[in-house]
């Protein structure tokens, strides 16, 4: 999938998708590891469920935003791809704009 097509398909991104992709930015992780990381960075606010994680990873992998990066104890590890990285940055830029434009409301 090319960047423009992926942008149309993934942006704006749900919070769940954003955090899953973000958790793979610097480190390869498996599903449970992603849940732990997301729980950690959101101060416990978001605790992803198994079905949500599995379905999201399948979708991200199917569209080439992440890839399988090996296995440990039958658990598949995932890594972000170049395309996934660009989409994450594009989403971060969109959120930054949202933040700027909503600041006057505070």
């Amino acid at each position, binding site marked *: 999938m090319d960047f423009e097509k992926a942008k149309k398909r993934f942006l704006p991104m*749900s*919070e*769940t998708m954003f955090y899953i992709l973000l958790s793979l930015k610097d480190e390869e992780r*498996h*599903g*449970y590891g992603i*849940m732990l990381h997301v729980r950690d960075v959101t101060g416990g606010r*978001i*605790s*992803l*469920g*198994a*079905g*949500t*994680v*599995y*379905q*999201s990873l*399948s979708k991200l992998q199917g569209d080439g935003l992440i890839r399988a990066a090996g296995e440990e*104890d*039958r*658990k*598949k590890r995932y890594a972000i791809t170049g395309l996934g990285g660009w989409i994450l940055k594009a989403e971060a830029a969109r959120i930054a704009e949202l933040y700027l434009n909503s600041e006057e409301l505070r």
Partner: protein
Amino acid sequence: MKDKKAVWMSAFTNVVPAEYEKWMEEMEAQGWHVDKIGQWSSIRMVFRRGEPRKYRYVYDMQAFPQKDYVSTYQSFGWEFVGRMASSFLWRKPYEKERPEAFTDAENLEKRGKRFAGAASVSMVLFWAALAVILIVLLARAGSLRFDDRLNLGILLVFMAFLAGGMTYVVRKIYKNRKE
């Protein structure tokens, strides 16, 4: 008091995934446990008497589960109860908050849509089979005696009733896809 109880057609009386989960949880709360489910459990499911337990059940349909489907659920602490065709059943004990496998609206709806899609396909196949039977019967109706025509009429009413029932069930599943 009996130690075992068989429930017939449970999947046909609790057609929506969320309803099915609740029903299994109520059985647990009343102390009826299921050890394992299999291909025929939607027709007949056997429960064993035990202590009342607080369990969360999750129904998930996966026609082509990937290699890490089962291990993902298991690593999140879900116990694999079994599968009926492509329907997987998971459970987890809990105390306070009822755990969820689908924690966002988007993925919960996807689960519901998958099931509604599968139910729709079954419905269309069922209708097609009925239509074939109907065509064959009507083509021969001209040469039938009165008694046989009456029987044919009864059969047609019965088939219409089945088709109507099936449509009602699929509509109900579709309406509840976000639950």
